[in-house]
Every structure is written in structure tokens, then in C-alpha cells.
């Protein structure tokens, strides 16, 4: 996993979605019990990723699984960056 990308995504989630930093791990389930994101948050993640990396999650066919954690988002971004 590209930790630089993961860190950037983590920072974006903390800033845009006010998730407490100390509760957010790379493998935390974002839409599960712990972090508890919902559909509004997913819109914000799409905008955040687009502005950070120029990767359009919806246009590139990201699935629910890709939104699962910082790890899966990082993998998706790495695979679609500069594509």
C-alpha cells in the first residue's frame, strides 16, 4: 500500500468528514459501525478524492467494496491515477 496516498486520504477524511483522527485506521470499515459513514459522506469522499488525485471514483467504476476502507480507496486511487 502506498502510505503517502493513504495518509492523504486519511487527512481528507478527517478534514471533510470530521472523523476523529485517533479512531481512524487504514483498515477501519468506513461505512460500518465504527466510523458510521453514510450516503452523504460518500459524495464528499468522491469530491475529496477527485480534488486530491484527479481520480473520478464514479466515472472509473468504483464499487461499494472500493469504499470499504482507506486501504481499498488507496488501492483504487493507485490503480486509476494518471490513467
Amino acid at each position, binding site marked *: 500500500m502506498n502510505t503517502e496516498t493513504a495518509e492523504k486520504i486519511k487527512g481528507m477524511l478527517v478534514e*471533510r*468528514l*470530521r*472523523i*476523529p483522527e485517533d*479512531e481512524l485506521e487504514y483498515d477501519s470499515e468506513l461505512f460500518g*459501525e*465504527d*466510523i*458510521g*459513514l*453514510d*450516503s*452523504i*459522506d460518500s*459524495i*464528499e469522499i468522491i*469530491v475529496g478524492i477527485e480534488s486530491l488525485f484527479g481520480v473520478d471514483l464514479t466515472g472509473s467504476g468504483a464499487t461499494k467494496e472500493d469504499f470499504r476502507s482507506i486501504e481499498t480507496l488507496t488501492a483504487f486511487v493507485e490503480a486509476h491515477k494518471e490513467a
Partner: protein
Amino acid sequence: MLNEKRCVITGLGLVCAIGNSTDECFASALNGISGIDDAKSFDTTNCYSHKGAEVKLTNAQLADGRYDRTTALGIKAAGEAIKDAGLDLESEDASEIGVLLGSCIAGAACVEKYYNQKAEGGKGDLDDLKSMPASVIAGNVADYYNIGGITANLVNACAAGTLSLSLALDLIRGGKGEIFLAGGCDSFSSLAYSGFHALKALAPSGCSPFNHSDGITLGEGAGVLVVESYEHAVARGAKIYCDVLGSGVSSDAYHITAPRPDGEGQMSVIRRAVENSGLKFSDIDYVNAHGTGTAKNDESEFLSLNTMFKDNNKLYVSSTKSMTGHCLGAAGAIEAVLTVKSLTEGKLPPTTGYSEEDIEALKDKQGGINVIANKPVQKDINYAMSNSFAFGGNNASVVFAKDPNVLNLLCPKQSLYVTGIGLVNGEYDDEKGDYIAQIDTETFKANGIKSAFLRKLDRLSQLQLLSGIRALQDAGLEITDENSGNIGICIGTNDGPMTEIANYQKGIIRDGIENGSAFAFPNTVYNAAGGYLSIATGIKGYNLTIANGFQSGLQSVCAASGAILFGYESIMLASGTDECTDIDDEIYSDLGLTGEGGMKLGEGSVTCVIEKESSAVERNAKRYAKIAGFSSARDTSGDRFNNMRMSKISLTKAINSVLEEGGLKPSDVKCIYGFGNGIGEIDVFEKEVYKEIFGEDIEIKFVKKEHGEARAASASLQFAMLAKDIYEGKAENGIAVSFGTSALYSAVLLTKA
């Protein structure tokens, strides 16, 4: 359920994208003429949608150009309603007319202008700053027409316009007034446009409710109805359009923006309105639906209507938003005016925009109801309903009728008690020079609130949630499936989420309208705090937020008491909440109200549990004190265009009203919890009035010395401290009093339980 006093509609006023008067709008609606066009108020080039339903008149054409556009729209519609009702504003009667207006975005146009000026390095126009909060709207409209009755701004987002009618009914049936201008107004705004754009909730082209359901189109406008007791209308020889039989208000307790997919909240509000009106589901002939055109709304509304009206095969439904756009806090009022016209003229407007294929598809989607597509239906009808469902999970419904129906005289009036108190007060912070409340994640965790939920809440909502939870705990109240529907919430606030509003606006000035935050937008609505409280606690009853100056924290007690006495709740949480952030510091400093010789800002939230006797007895609840009288009063003496004026007449009237209601003489009163806040002029005025009414020796207590000017939270704190004093035997009785803009005062008399 209480329907013992006949209430009628005697005047209508309307302005929106499809016309500048009621008749123009109704004719357009019947002819299916849409007001949706390319938005012109601001540049939408970089947005994926460019549509809006804007009013063609300028602010100067709406009023006299001195007001924010939302208020100007309200002034225009109120003027038509006053004229239509044949009200003589020179007569003494005008001093008793109240003004209750709903708004969602309030002075958003002025927020935009003010922060644009500041972004460009300017100072910002003070008139714009004063016009930003919802608190000033109804008072400004009342002052404009020299109308002297009480005011309220109902700020429950897209249900606000309908809630104003519900409050008017409660007030008239509770003997707190005979005649009200009730309605709603909202302007087109970059803030709302950006917010719905961020949520991907705007339709790419014009909205298509119950049809393509691909999003909303924002509109602007105002609707005002004159709601009057039948006796009052007959006595002045008024023309009567129809009766307004009853209303319902409920909360979803589900999500801050999305409706419950199972439609439970919508169904409960429809049931309440039908039952409150003494009707059967099969009696309703026409529903003017919420019908926003989002997939989620349309799906859940089809489900709700089909479920509730399953035995009614003659029900016609339309969404006039297909032509007017979604006018947010004005929507319910605009639709109420159109519904009254539909009922009285026997002509039902269509939902527009269906192709032949769409009409075929509709037959499958609509189930047992008849959505009126494209062409109006001519039909004599007797009962019509208008529904509104809002952000925060707020639902409101109102029923109009051609006849007064059978009046229900079975609801006995009961005593009301304070049975719980939850306090979140500010303490002096040397560094900030304000009184700041200590709230942290650990406190919430200890109260069962997870950080996954808490992170969504702005500071105002967090303050509110904490005091609400503490009040429920203090009252020993657990929310269950059995009681959740009969417990409600009424919140008062002066500034509401102004911090979120200002920050959102600054963000889109910096990043563009197309780059607003979907996460932040829901917190810019004034009723978000009430919505989160309902979601966190599971409270599903009445839900109202009033933004009406510092006294809002006492007016919330009055409205909560009304919702029990004249509505259908057993228990109400009545709150006052205001925050103190850097934005508040900046606003009050710019207004010149803080600093040397001014007030010290504070923040906090106070929630009191108000409960009817039968419920308190059944639960064996601790009773702090009995509510022996509650009243609001206002007048237009002095310079009525100065909405910061003080009025001895109104303050005296509010106090005398509660004394009369409680059967006490001034000499019986033991103490006053006053509103003094360190501004010399206010303090001197207040003490003089009390001395005149109660004599030299009356004990006056102030809460702001210890906790700062926390505005609505201070007003609620005065009430809560008085209740505590009585409970602890420190006082036999007392009155809590506070003040708002446009010379509005509220007072509550508490006695021993």
C-alpha cells in the same frame, strides 16, 4: 386532539415564479404553466444544473427595497393577504394580528452580500448583517404593516410554511390570539443552490415529481394565509374561504436529509392531521403533495399515500412544485394557498411535464391514488390536505374543509408541569473573553452517543443534544416505541447555525458554488439541531424550531405548552440554544453590542421537560413547578422601523397576561428572572418596568452575570432556574421574562407544583 374552536381562512397572498398574486399563480397552476427557467440570480456556469424558479420582481418592487429578499417576498404576500381579507390596519384590531412565518434559508441573500464584501476586504454593510438571521423576518413584516400582534419565525426547513399554519391553529384554539398572518417566505440563494448541488439533489433540467424523479428545482416565493377564529371573522363581516380543520406535526427520528424509506413519519403526520380534523381517511378528496422530485421523496411519498389512503379510491394528488419549484420554507405556505383555491373553486391543478410514455408509466407507479398529470381536474371537493416533509425528518400536514365538520369537545385542559431540566452552561474563558461551554467527546460517549454520530453535528447541535439528553435523564424518561410518538421537541434560538451558514458561504465564495460541501450543508438549516436530537433519542412527535430573538428560549416554552394543551402531545422538550464561536464574536462586535459598555457573549443550551398532569401522575414524575401562565406580547409603539426598540407597553402586557392566567396579583409575585445583560439602556428599562408593576421590593434575579449573554439559552436558563428555586423552596412562585426583536416579549409564570 382538540378542535373546539372553528378556525377559518379569510385572506390569501402569493408570489412565486408562476405569478405575482394568488389569482395569477392559481391560473398558471391550472394551465400547467411552469415558472422554471435558467437561473439568473447568480452564475451557475460550472454547475451540472442551471435551472431555477425565480420571482420576476425586484426587491424594490416587492417591498420598498430596504429589506432582505426573503423578508421582501414575505411583505409582498402579506400585503395581498391583508387586502384580500379586508383588514383595516388603521383599526384597533390590527394591534392584535399576529405574524407567523416559516423560512428555511432566511437572509441568505444578505449573508452572501455581506461575506462577499468582507472577502473583497471591505467592512460589510451593517444593514445586511442585521438582515441575516431568521429572527428578524416576521417582526420586520409586522412592523412594515404596523401590525402589533405576536410574531414567530418557524425555521423547520421545508416544512416551515405548513408548521406556521399548525402553530396558528394551536394559538387560536388555545385562546392566545384571534387572527394571524401565517405562511412562509424564502428567496433564491447561492447557499441552498450550492448545497443541493453538492448533495447531487438538483434535477439536471426542470424537476419532474412523481415522474422522472431525478431531483429538485429550487424556487423562491412567499405564501401568506389569514387564519382567524370563526367568531372573529363573522364579527368583522369577513369573506370566508374555508375552514382549516386540523394539522399534524411529526419527526422521522431517522436521517438528517433523507426521509424514512418506510414512510413511517409521513404516515404518522397524515394520520395526525386526519384525526386532529375529526375526519376519516376516506374523506380526503385531494392532497397537494410534498412531491419534490427526488427519487427518495417520491418513492416514500407514493408508499405513504397508498398505505394511508388504501380505502380511498377517489383521492387526487398533485405536486405543484413541478411549476413553482421547491421554495423551501415558503413551499408549504405556497401550496396551502393553492390548496385553498383548489378546494374553494373545485379545480385541482396538475403535476406537469409528463409525456405519453410517462403517463403510461405513472399508471404502474401510482398504485391506488390518482396523480393529476398535465391537465387540471374539475371536481367539487370537500376536504383537501397539504403535506410538507423536511430536512431533519420534520413532517407537517394541514387539512382544509368546506364545512366545519364535527367539533371535538372532548379534550380536557390539564395542568402542565416542569418535570426535567438539562443544563449546558458556559463558564468564563479568559482567553476568549466569552462564556464557553465545556463539551467533549467523552461526555457524549458517557451518554451513549458514539463519535460516528457526533462528528456530523455542528456545535449548536452538540449543545442541544447534550441538554436534551440531560433533561430526559433528569425527568427519568426513557423513549420507547409506546411513548415516542407523543413526545415532542420545541427549540428556540436567536442565531441558529449562523456559524455553519457563514462558513459555508465563505467556502463557496472561495471555491465556487459548484464546490460546496455535501457534509456541511445539512447543518446550515436551523432545525438540524432538533433533527439530530430526534434521531439520537428516537423522539417522533411534534418538532418545531423558533428563531425569534433572545426570547426564543421562552417562546419555545409557550409553543411547547401549546402543543400539549391544544395539540396532542403528552410531553414536550422545550429548549433554548445558542452557540458562541468566532463567527458570533465577529457578528456581535460588528454590530457594536459587545466590548466596552456592551454585553459579554455566552453560549449554552437549556432543555426543560414540560409534561401534562395525567402523564406526570402516571409516571410518578418529579415536579419542579407548575406552569401557571404563559404569554407573548408585542406592539408597534415608538419608532417601529427600529427593530431593536424596547417597549414598556408590550413587556407590561406579557406580564399582566400571565398574572391573569395564573389568577395572581402583582403583589403575589415573589421574584422575577429578568433578561438584563449589562447593556445599560436595557437594564435600566427593565428594572423600571418591574418596579412600576410590582413595586420597589420585587426580587430580580439575573443569570447572565454568571453565564454571559447566551441569548435563547439564557432565556431558557431563567425559566429553568426559576423552576429549580421553586422546587428547592427558595421561592413560592415567579416569572421568567425575556425580549426579542421588534418589541416582542415572552413571560412564563411558575408556581408550586
